[in-house]
């Protein structure tokens, strides 16, 4: 929801970033306030995922210019784990498999890390088990996933649900979901959307990085941004997504850069 009095969570100014020496982000600006849902759309190679990973601090992505403030703090000088603890969550496009580490153990450690960051007591394994089972029920996840190794042998849809489960547990201030909808069937899509809509309260914000309009049938964004050539070319409301669906992306990049709605 858009509220003029809402606090600014994320402020990105003129961000430039590169991977293996190739510049991908070329001056990106974005402001996200508490309570808002943003969708970042754009064709392949426009820099959407790079933006998500650069915000989270992936070591392969180096920021060369620009500033990123998160709740007023300089996010770029924080280590990736400190960014996470500060409340920035990245839902991975390709969640990583970690053989030998039980999902329950991983989730509990992540959850307790977030709790101690907030100055709350850690949950013991039994308390945590109750909590995580309840959350899994909401996401229609089979509790067997707790005993399996993190993401190992999970199907694409299971991996994505597991990401949403982590988001639901950690309740981050800002969740950036990198193509969480790709490869999902309609049921999984509905479940993922449900998880996102639950998180979207006045204190939290969500940035959806997505290729298709499909997810936006279930999650109504406050803003839709179109990326191209490493920056945001156009910003609009939910109706922009529908327009993209019918007209494609080419007409946006044909307009003069920075022509925002």
């Amino acid at each position, binding site marked *: 929801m858009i509220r003029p009095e809402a606090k600014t969570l994320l402020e990105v100014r003129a961000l430039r970033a590169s991977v293996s020496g190739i510049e991908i982000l070329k001056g990106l600006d974005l402001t996200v306030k508490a309570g808002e849902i943003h969708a970042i759309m754009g064709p392949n190679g426009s820099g959407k995922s790079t933006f998500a990973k650069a915000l989270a601090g992936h070591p392969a992505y180096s920021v060369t210019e620009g500033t990123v403030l998160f709740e007023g703090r300089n996010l770029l000088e924080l280590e990736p*784990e400190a960014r996470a603890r500060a409340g920035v969550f990245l839902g991975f496009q390709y969640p*990583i498999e970690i053989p030998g580490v039980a999902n329950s153990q991983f989730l509990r450690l*992540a959850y307790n890390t977030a709790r101690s960051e907030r100055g709350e007591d850690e949950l013991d394994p039994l308390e945590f088990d109750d909590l995580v089972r309840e959350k899994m029920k909401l996401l229609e996840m089979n509790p067997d996933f707790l005993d399996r190794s993190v993401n190992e042998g999970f199907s694409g849809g299971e991996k994505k649900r597991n990401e949403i489960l982590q988001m639901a547990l950690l309740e981050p201030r800002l969740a950036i979901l990198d193509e969480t909808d790709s490869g999902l069937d309609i049921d999984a899509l509905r479940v993922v959307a449900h998880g996102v809509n639950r998180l979207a309260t006045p204190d939290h914000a969500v940035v959806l990085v997505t290729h298709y309009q499909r997810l936006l049938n279930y999650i109504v964004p406050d803003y839709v941004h179109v990326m191209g050539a490493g920056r945001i070319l156009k910003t609009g409301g939910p109706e922009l997504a529908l327009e993209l669906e019918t007209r494609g992306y080419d007409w946006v990049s044909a307009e003069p850069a920075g022509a925002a709605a």
Partner: protein
Amino acid sequence: MSAVIQNLVNRPYPHGFVTEIESDVAPKGLDESTIRLISARKNEPEWLLEFRLKAFRGWLAMAEPVWANVHYPKIDFQAISYYAAPKPKKLASMDEVDPELLRTFEKLGVPMNERAKLAGVAVDVIFDSVSVATTYKQKLAEVGIIFCSISEAVREHPELVRKYLGSVVPLGDNYYAALNSAVFTDGSFCFIPKGVKCPMDLSTYFRINTEASGQFERTLIIAEEGASVSYLEGCTAPKFDTNQLHAAVVELIALDNAEIKYSTVQNWYAGDEKGVGGIYNFVTKRGLCKGVNSRISWTQVETGSAITWKYPSCVLRGDNSVGEFYSVALTNNYQQADTGTKMVHIGRNTRSTIISKGISAGHSNNSYRGLVRVTPPAEGARNYSQCDSMLIGEQCGANTFPYIQVRNHSAKVEHEASTSKIGEDQLFYFAQRGIGAEEAVSMIINGFCKQVFQQLPMEFAVEATKLLGLKLEGSVG
């Protein structure tokens, strides 16, 4: 990223202190007179001196083995002192132990005294060459269990020692076993009589304290018909920038329906981050499943030593006997390990399991070498082997050398192997959930080693988990 990995592995060795204790050290060098001196110091019977001399003469004619995947300068066996004992020696009770020595063990966290009793672990402590104290002896004696130093066993139970010593690892078995047979100084002896289940874990703690002394301990464990015992062994040494030699021999004998479980947490000094100093750990460990339905299980967590050359093995002679080998070998910096097992199937329906987990970090090199031999009479033999390697960083190496010799058509032998790597993407995934590199690595490593840690007695499993964490600190990132 790999710089973080580097830092994580490089944590100072916490056991690297030297204890200021007056020692009785034999002059350096090795010839027949050295052996006579050791034997005389220990007031040994004539047969044992003969045993030693025979081994020594055999050793002189043997060549140092070069087949292992380890590299080191030639050892000067004349530059080693073959006997070092803290003085005053041999004590009746713990109160007589040199307080300095007790403080050493306190620093090491060895459970002795009350702590030993609380932990329910009987401990034999070997300091350089001499057994210092054996706790809980009396209580064990009530059920007929003999647990003492091997020197004491030679005096008090010569018939048992004579019967079994060298019966599993013969005098001339290999270069280092022959050397050990010639110059072994102390070690543990354990005898579980027929039908007795040892009521507590037995434990030996080894420490090399004197620079330029070698440690050559000899351990002999016998479980008679229907007996069972769980035995634990821990090892540390101070930091010296010279290399010290540790060449032990361990022999296990399990008679009908007997069970021996032998667990080791080896943390000898591994040398510094440039590879200077550290222990050469050349050890021969072998168990004989002599009786039907007997079982011998080796579990080892090898984290120390500059070089490890060690293959705890099982000879499955009794029908239906079972051999197991569970191993975690971690190498860092310039450590080298060539370790594994041998399972020799002789009896019918014998079974063996090998689970080996190798972790390499820094510039280290970690090799698994294992032999599964099914001899013609071993009808229905089965083996399952699983060898997994994990690499941390870009400079280390891992190898697997499985040898499989099957001479009976009814045998089933399975071998699985995998290699994985702790990668940047895994660590980033953890980091993105607020979990730092050290914790992430320890979680991955513990998951990787789980199958082996499950085999360790509880306190040992906790210690092993901590130890791996310490060893890898600074190696990830």
